[in-house]
């Protein structure tokens, strides 16, 4: 269902805000599958990189090339924000919204909504106002709403930053299932433990520049730059 998988290449991408370079130049290719964790200290440009890939950030220089036509790229992607954005509607309507936007028929929407409510453990809260859910429930709903379109690529920006252990584990389980189902995941996190648990590959950013890109096992065992080593050691790096 999720195939054909898609890959992406960034060609010397630079993002500037008010004359200051916040990202780049970055040259990078990501394969069509796997779970990539973006690591780096605050202000390294992690969120900006995600937004560039998602296509919602204006690129000052360079280009982003997807393996499928641009028109289809956005529909094949989903994005989960650090603080979940809830539509002022019921849980059911929040789940249904992305499907309504692309004109899926009602019966199909209804069955997928129920399916995802179960997967996210919100089946009893379907008619509950989404903005009144707990933090963990909101993030699960946001994740369900992102996955309900069965995206080929899913971006997550610190999805578990404000969550307790239980919610974090439930989110990770959903993400694990999603990768198994073939969704390409690119996610930022501050939680090195989470990174070790989930990552196939790692991108390490600092001051807007890409310092390392490689297999997770190799990165965590023996990072090739001293900055990454310092970061893994928990040192403050500037």
């Amino acid at each position, binding site marked *: 269902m999720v195939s054909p998988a898609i890959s992406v290449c960034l060609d010397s991408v630079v993002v500037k805000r008010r004359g200051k370079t916040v990202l780049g130049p970055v040259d990078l290719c990501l394969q069509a599958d796997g779970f990539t964790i973006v690591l780096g200290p605050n202000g390294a440009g992690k969120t900006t990189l995600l937004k560039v890939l998602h296509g919602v950030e204006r690129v000052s220089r360079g280009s982003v090339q997807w393996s499928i036509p641009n028109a289809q790229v956005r529909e094949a992607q989903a994005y989960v924000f650090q603080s979940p954005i809830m539509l002022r*509607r019921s849980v059911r309507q929040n789940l249904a919204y992305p499907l309504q*936007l692309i004109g899926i028929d009602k019966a199909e929407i209804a069955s997928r909504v129920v399916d995802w409510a179960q997967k996210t453990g919100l089946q009893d809260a379907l008619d509950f106002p989404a903005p*009144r859910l707990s933090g963990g429930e909101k993030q699960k709903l946001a994740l369900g709403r992102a996955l309900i379109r069965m995206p080929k690529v899913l971006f997550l920006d610190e999805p578990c930053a404000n969550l307790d252990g239980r919610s974090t584990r439930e989110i990770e389980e959903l993400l694990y299932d999603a990768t198994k189902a073939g969704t390409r995941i690119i996610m930022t996190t501050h939680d090195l433990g989470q990174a070790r648990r989930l990552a196939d590959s790692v991108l390490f950013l600092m001051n807007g520049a890409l310092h390392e890109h490689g297999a997770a096992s190799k990165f965590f065992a023996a990072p090739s730059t001293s900055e990454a080593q310092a970061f893994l050691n928990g040192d403050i790096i500037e």
Partner: protein
Amino acid sequence: MNEIWAGVQEAFRLIFILDADLIEITLRSLEVSLTALVIASALALPFGTWLAIRRFRYRRFTIAVLNALMGLPPVVVGLVVYLLLSRSGPFGVMGLLFTPTAMIIAQVIIITPLIASITHQAMRELWSEYHDLLISLNTTKRQRVVALIWDGRRTLMTAALAGFGRAIGEVGAIMIVGGNIDHATRVLTTAIALETGKGDFALALGLGFVLITLTLVVNLAIHALSRTEQEGTW
């Protein structure tokens, strides 16, 4: 105090006996102000929302003008509409002066900026909340406006009700363009002005209480219809 009490009694008497004139002018008040409200909302709600999500060159200027128009003195609006609709004015051939249509036109001009301005403020807030999600979901402009209007309907209703309150309580403009003609353009507010002029404070105040009750009933009815109170705090 005696006069206020007499006014309360007069109000009850008029309502109790279902005074034919009272019913007529009350219905006309409703007809004029509700029509004005519908037209003004149809213009102001999409415009205010559009203004909240659209970035364009003269946006700040437009918003400043809109906020200034919110304070348009009704009497001046009335005078200008009067001069436009007068037989010797540019739209005189339409013969609209001293008709309910003229009153509706004046009220639309008075309340559209008010509704648009409140809408813009409410929608700007909601848009900053929804912005990232709606952009991420790759929504079209139309889908964004629809989502904002639908999810902001409670605040939009407040905006519309503010407009209605201003319209139905307004006297300066409709007195000028309507002429307060008995059985043609007399509404509650102009009747109150007339009775005050005659020194009949009890009747004037009675009509005033009817007007207040009417505003209250319309507000409650709209709230009940849209079940906003039950939806509670989002």
